[in-house]
């Protein structure tokens, strides 16, 4: 009897999770954040329901501060696959002009992403949302269920999680409550890259090294992606060969210096890396346990 390889086992599990989720809810949606994990999740969704199309739309909770290349990639990909994409922009954040510079990363993330996500789910009445989070990303994620229950206020209670046994997922809920489902829970960063490599999954070019205008700020290399970024007197963008390990809002996403301009190059760099991937993200460093707090408040 043949034993499946680890990628085959992970793929089969993710597909199993997605099929179970859509069967147990009324109105599912897939959160699409344009990054590599979203790309893998979308690829798996297409496999899971083939020859049908995935029976749900994609939802991008936009902050208006993503890299320009991310928007281009998103629109091209959705067109190519013929899927429905819903883009939600928090009108309150637009009105108040929330941005990372005067308001800081905490307020920016809370209002654009956390509040924006809740608004979008409520507005469309989605009762189940797929997210691309992985347990290896962060300590509180490591404790979260694959099917993660949210109250009508979108809150997560880490002490009241439903036991999750075997492959039996409990997606039942009352009206107003919802479920977040993480099909990539058991994938690691390396699994994701290997899978992208072997399955030839398209990803945003920002993952590959290229000369880009960056400034060094608080120890991070920040790309000056458009004119909205206010520069300090002593800052001058320098063209540097950089790439990104994770993608988010450009002012909050640190680049790393790299010459790796193809997949095998970045996988090799990753194998040799000495810092974990979320290190480039400003939001996790606010305080110890900050992700757990954000998640309780409704962050994905």
């Amino acid at each position, binding site marked *: 009897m043949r034993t499946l390889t680890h990628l085959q086992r992970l793929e089969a599990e993710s597909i199993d999770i997605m099929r179970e989720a859509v069967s147990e809810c009324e109105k599912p949606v897939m959160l699409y954040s344009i990054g590599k994990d979203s790309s893998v999740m979308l690829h798996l969704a297409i496999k899971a329901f083939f020859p049908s199309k995935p029976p749900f739309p994609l939802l991008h909770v936009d902050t208006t501060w993503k890299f320009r290349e991310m928007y281009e990639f998103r629109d091209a990909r959705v067109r190519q696959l013929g899927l429905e994409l819903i883009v939600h922009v928090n009108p309150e954040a637009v009105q108040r002009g929330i941005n990372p510079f005067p308001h800081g990363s905490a307020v920016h993330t809370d209002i654009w992403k956390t509040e924006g996500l809740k608004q979008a789910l409520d507005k469309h009445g989605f009762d189940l949302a797929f997210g691309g989070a992985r347990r*290896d990303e962060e300590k509180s994620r490591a404790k979260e269920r694959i099917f993660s229950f949210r109250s009508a206020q979108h809150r997560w209670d880490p002490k009241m999680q439903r036991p999750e046994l075997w492959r039996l997922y409990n997606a039942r809920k009352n009206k107003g409550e919802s479920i977040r489902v993480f099909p990539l829970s058991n994938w690691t960063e390396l699994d994701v890259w290997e899978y992208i490599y072997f399955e030839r999954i398209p990803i945003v070019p920002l993952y590959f090294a290229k000369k880009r205008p960056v400034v060094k700020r608080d120890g991070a290399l920040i790309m000056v992606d458009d004119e909205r970024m206010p520069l300090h007197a002593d800052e001058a963008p320098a063209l540097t060969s950089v790439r990104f390990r994770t993608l988010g809002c450009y002012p909050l996403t640190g680049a790393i210096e790299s010459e790796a301009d193809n997949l095998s190059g970045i996988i090799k760099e990753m194998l040799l890396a000495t810092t974990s991937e979320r290190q480039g993200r400003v939001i996790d460093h606010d305080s110890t346990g900050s992700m757990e707090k954000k998640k309780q408040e409704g962050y994905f």
Partner: protein
Amino acid sequence: MSRVDDLSAGDLEEYLRSHADKTLLRFLTCGSVDDGKSTLIGRLLYESKLLYDDQLRALEADSKRLGAADGELDFALLLDGLAAEREQGITIDVAYRFFSTDKRKFIVADTPGHEQYTRNMVTGASTADVAVILIDARKGVLIQTRRHSYLIALLGIRRVVLAINKLDLVGYSRPVFDRIEEEYRAFAGSIGLTDIVCLPLSAKKGDNVTTPSANTPWHRGPTLMEYLETVEIDSDAGNGPLRMPVQWVNRPNLDFRGFSGRVVGGSVRVGDRVRVLPSGKESTVARIVTQEGDLDRAVSGQSITLTLHHEIDISRGDLFAAADSPASVADQFEATLVWMSEDEMLPGRPYLLKIGAKTVGVTIAPPKYKVNVNSLEHLAAKTLHLNEIGVCNLNLDQVIAFDPYEQNRDTGGFILIDRFSNETIGAGLLHFALRRSQNIHWQAIEVNKQAHATLMGHKPCMVWFTGLSGAGKSTIANLVEKRLHAMGRHTYLLDGDNVRHGLNKDLGFTEADRVENIRRVAEVASLMVDAGLIVLVSFISPFRAERRMARTLVPQGEFCEVFVDTPLGVAEQRDTKGLYKKARRGELQNFTGIDSPYEPPEQPEVQIDTTACAPEDAAETIVAHLRATGVLDPL
């Protein structure tokens, strides 16, 4: 990963190819509180060079902040991810960790040791291929060791590593090691665990974790890592007959009708004869569809889509099985249950049971016995509380396909769900179908409900009065019956107090007995509805779950819930039977409204506010409702 450093770009493809062929082992670690589980996992990550610089720096900071005594790294802090866990210094919930070596990828479930987290340990064990049980060499085999071993054996994990840890603290003594090994093997054999490897370890110092230790020259076996890298993985029931639950019917257009699911036993080839359960219809496999192209064969663990040669009726929850070796079909079982809810199990209460892709209604009989997980004694029990394990009979509201759990975890394991909170309240392992389930059939009766109703000249109905003691239920129900009787309708009034003098005189007032009380009354009322009567049921019936159960016993439109809504203060003031006074003096236990809850109906058909409405008017309202819904002829 250690050999990545000298990779040239050209070797990467090859490196990744070899990496991609790695298998995946899932294991869990368990042991009692201070045996060093988290330390061991931290050590495995550290030794596999899988801790990144920033994680190490954060760990150093956390270790100092939370006062690790000797300034050493406290690996446990890496794993205890929840704020409450870090504060209390214990593991509450299962944490999953990931690492890989050149040979394998690993998923570790780090499970809590305390008895009050048994449910979390069972959760971690349900997906594991191998269990690593830690023992503190200074303490030897403890009660916790026995409990964890029992749970591991129960959940069907056959391969066990006994990690005899902290051996540095007993001077790497071989006699200590040998004594513990001997004692453990004797115990493990008694619960059916035989595939055991014992290792002398110090997770803190690193002995025999990844490299053989010079401190234990007498140890001939593998290191922990060697064992984990080479142990055989057989969790996917790959050698049994085909089993595949249908998760999703795939219908992109009128020309394609596929059945999507994951193979959870055996394998399937194009042309294989398959049986669909529980219907028993058969067909042959036409195609095994995946996005990369059709397959000739799919094996256990794969997610696929099947098409068949014949159009047969198949829906979500059905099970594909090999035609020559099908699963059994039944609706009554004996099962072992692990109770996971703060609320005790209530025999007779309707719960939901999910097995494979199927969810059905279930009631549970009082336990045959519960198991003392520390001594493994069988004890008498009326119910199961949080973290208790017992053996019970189950009664499902429809038949399901199943295999005994020991033959297949996926077709024999189930979870129990509360119908109202939707919480997962328990897990269970099916043992066998009860013979009576196969021998008691519905007798087809020729004079049926319709015939009874025709002779009566009116529609039957169950009118269910609920409310606090002294709310006025019986008064109003009496008035309604008198009016119906005067109209020439055939009625019967079932009253709580009266039924407790006869049919239910063996029942008390505990939550479990109240549930059984209502179950019996609802069944009797349903028989009377079948006989064509208008049945008036007047019971406090404090719980939504049982009222809902009563509602489901009759067709829609034949159930009318009447909420006799009297505030507690008013009912207590009336106190026609003097019961409230007794309850307040502590002479009556479990009195509804005082020390036992009343759950008001959410959407009753009729709600009577007795503070604003005389009993006669209330009766009139109810009669009017029965007219409006067609039970009685219009005026």
